[in-house]
């Protein structure tokens, strides 16, 4: 056997929907994370409840990771179909663990240097517990061949099954132990990829949706109305499961139009309110987005993109809604668009979005996608730092300020900044009516020419002030490089790992990543791009929407584009291959 590779591998669990792929994967993630390893885990699933191939891909390392990586080193194949689907993505020297009796194309495996580890998973499960514990046996076997201490698995078994009673826990423990022992005894010597626990502080395992939810909560959001839509649904679900004492009102609305309108109503009445959806639901919200823009009501919308158009690829990833969200709704009004690239950025973008929405009294869209929303990553607990969160409600009139008003309240007063001090309904001096029609300073409907011109100027002027809060793109890697990758949002992770791969292979690359996209940071972008030798826009879409936005805003063109629109996220290796 070649030298052992320690704590640097990927494991893939593949099987049919309904076979417990997700819960098995999540259990493994927890076991490794509690043993001090860093974990990055990606889910690949279909838009159906039962049947069809699903997989869960975990990458394990001693250093933080920002993406999955290919090829994998160990495949747990719960169905025969899983093997041909993934055989091309198994590293030489890697292995497939599969239930004994499954018909496998062992010839092909051998040709590719992939080892076949047959395991009597079902009979182990039956002997020590019951057949439904086959997944437990598979996980035990995986730990066995990697020689990862079973105790970490045992903790997870206790945690996951204790509600079902001590008998179920005991049986699962026995199944895991038996599979572990047999796999280790039969195959551990032949398998070079090993995992060893490290002494590390306990880390969180968290995905983008969860980080956004935590950020929104810390940012004072106490109202979310939404309509279930993959991959955004887990945001309202997470909020709904919070202890009621925290006071987060969640409303599963009758449709996305109601969802966004409820959030607008709640915000108008003084709450920090949000909605979360994907592109299809956002399409329905578009008219109301203009309502928030016109009536200057703060609004936070999370748009977790998936493959489009129309129903598209409901459970898969894409970055094809960028130009849509920047331009959505008729007419012109200010809005901000944030596109976090990592879970840390998701947390920050969420609370920041509420401050920006209240400061500029307009919609703020947080644009993510399925890959970022659902991929799990280990994260230091300190990275979610609640003490860093600021709640800044912008120009909001206090009761005392309202009390001292003399000539009536002008909700839409013309000001130098374009921002008119806001009153929350409920104070005798703060009474006003807002209208989606053009209106005067008091809010009354008018079509008068001079007023229209000044009101448009007033509203659009806010964008100039907001632009000063927009963050320029971040550079990753050396200041100067032969090749500069340019990306936005979730492509950040695979791109930065691609940069590392290129540089460790003797190449010269760096990355420019955009997390704030509107108002577009044109000046900084232009000067950063002017300093680059060769640029490549790497986007998970067909039409290179960021590259077009850059050209529109700066007159600069990127030299090349790399696009992926098959619904599967870029891996760092995909990007490197494309650039070869």
């Amino acid at each position, binding site marked *: 056997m070649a030298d052992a590779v320690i704590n640097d591998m990927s494991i893939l669990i593949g099987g049919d929907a309904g076979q417990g792929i997700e819960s098995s994967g999540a259990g493994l993630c927890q076991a490794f994370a*509690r043993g001090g390893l860093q974990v990055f885990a990606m889910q690949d699933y279909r838009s159906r409840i039962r049947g069809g191939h699903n997989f869960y891909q975990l990458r394990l390392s001693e250093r933080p990771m920002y993406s999955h990586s290919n090829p994998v080193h160990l495949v747990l194949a719960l169905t025969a179909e899983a093997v041909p689907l993934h055989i091309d993505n198994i590293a030489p020297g890697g292995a497939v663990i599969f239930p004994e009796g499954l018909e496998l194309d062992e010839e092909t495996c051998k040709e590719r240097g992939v080892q076949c580890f047959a395991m009597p998973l079902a009979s182990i499960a039956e002997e020590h517990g019951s057949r439904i514990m086959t997944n437990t046996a598979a996980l035990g076997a995986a730990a066995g061949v990697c020689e990862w201490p079973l105790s970490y698995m045992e903790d997870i078994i206790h945690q996951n099954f204790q509600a079902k009673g001590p008998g179920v826990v005991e049986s699962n423990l026995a199944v895991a132990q038996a599979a572990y022992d047999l796999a280790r005894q039969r195959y551990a010597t032949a398998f070079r990829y090993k995992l060893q626990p490290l002494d590390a502080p306990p*880390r*969180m395992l*968290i995905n983008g949706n969860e980080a956004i939810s*935590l950020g929104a*909560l*810390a940012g*004072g959001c*106490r*109202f979310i109305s939404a309509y279930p839509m993959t991959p955004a649904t887990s945001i309202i679900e997470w909020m709904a499961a919070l202890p*009621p004492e*925290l*006071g*987060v*009102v*969640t409303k599963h*609305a*009758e*449709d996305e*139009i*109601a969802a966004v*309108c*409820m*959030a*607008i*109503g*709640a*915000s*108008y*009445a*003084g*709450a*920090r*309110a949000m909605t979360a959806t994907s592109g299809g639901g956002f399409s329905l919200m578009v*008219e*109301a987005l203009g*309502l928030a823009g016109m*009536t200057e009501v703060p609004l936070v919308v999370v748009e977790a993109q998936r493959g489009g158009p129309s129903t598209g690829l409901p459970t898969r990833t894409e970055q094809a809604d960028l130009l849509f969200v920047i331009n959505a709704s008729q007419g012109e009004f200010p809005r901000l668009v944030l596109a976090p690239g990592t879970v840390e950025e998701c947390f920050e973008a969420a609370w920041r979005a509420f401050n920006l929405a209240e400061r500029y009294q307009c919609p703020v869209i947080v644009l993510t996608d399925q890959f970022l929303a659902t991929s799990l990553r280990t*994260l230091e607990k300190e990275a979610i730092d*609640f*003490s860093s*969160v600021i*709640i800044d*409600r912008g120009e909001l009139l206090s009761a005392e300020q309202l009390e001292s008003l003399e000539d009536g309240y002008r909700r839409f007063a013309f000001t130098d900044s374009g921002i008119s001090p806001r009153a*929350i*309904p*409920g*104070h*005798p*001096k*703060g*009474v*006003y*009516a*807002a*209208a*989606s029609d053009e209106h005067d300073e008091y*809010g*009354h*409907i008018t079509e008068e020419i001079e007023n229209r011109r000044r009101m448009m100027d007033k509203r659009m002027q806010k964008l100039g002030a907001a632009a000063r809060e927009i963050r320029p793109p971040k550079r990753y890697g050396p200041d100067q490089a032969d090749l500069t990758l340019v990306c936005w949002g979730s492509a950040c992770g695979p791109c930065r790992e691609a940069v590392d791969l290129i540089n460790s292979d003797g190449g010269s690359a760096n990355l420019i990543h955009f997390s704030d996209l509107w108002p577009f940071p044109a000046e900084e972008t232009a000067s950063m791009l002017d300093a680059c030798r060769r640029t490549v826009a790497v986007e998970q879409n067909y039409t290179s929407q960021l590259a077009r936005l850059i050209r529109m805003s700066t007159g600069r063109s990127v030299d090349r584009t790399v696009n992926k629109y098959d619904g599967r996220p870029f891996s760092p290796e995909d990007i490197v291959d494309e650039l070869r």
Partner: protein
Amino acid sequence: MVTKVDARTYDTTVEITWCAGCGDFAILRALKLALADLDIAPHEVLIVSGIGCGSKLPDYMNANGYMTIHGRPLAVATGAKLANPDLHVLVVNGDGDGYGIGGNHFVHTCRRNPNITQIVENNQIYGLTKGQYSPTSDAGFITTTSPDGAIEAAFNPMAIALAAGATFVGRSFSGEPKHMAEIIARGITHQGYALIDVLQPCVTFNRVNTYAWYRERIYHLEEEQGYDPSDRTAAWIKAQEWGERIPVGVIYQAEGVPTYEEQVRAMEGGSPAGRLLELAKASPTEEYDRLKEQFV
């Protein structure tokens, strides 16, 4: 009783753009009377409307108002009510807004039962777009979009509200502003969602359903011997009546049904708007930190 408001408190100097004789004037008048009668001050009420002639009403009242987009005021109002249940939240919109484009929100608001009162200005036509047939236009009604007469059966708001679970279903007529003020006041006092459909002639575009047409047909339920609005079966029969005889008054009222917002556990300790005022001063970072443990 010392009252703080009379109906004039709600007056504004804004020019009203409705046609002379429009049934909406009576609704504006009745709403002011009802609010004054209940001693609700302008800052204690929020009137949400959609788009259409009647949805301009908040512009003509000195009160918190929000003229939103076509068909959506119930959803906006529901959000506002959940954010601050202390506000008296009303929705005022037309039949196209409320029953056509907003039909989905209407049905779901009925079964949701928020403490919101909706007044539908039902003139059986689209006025602001100059005379197209509406969901409540009777079959055969000739307009620019139904030149051969409307083919669909008319939408029956009373029956649909009842079927969908509304806890207060009432009807009034623009020719009787005092009666309307009473019904509106009862709707506002009702704990839960109240629908008040107001027969409101469009004097410009609807030459069929005129003041005279309605006057010939309406009769008052409160004058019906033994009519009990809490009797759901009796209400269902009254809700079907249209044509020769049209009942006005409270068709149905179920008392004691908890409102939506009363049942939201997260609102027991305060409203979202109220809590935010506290959070802006100090955040419970220790409670938040405990949430992190679920991810470890």
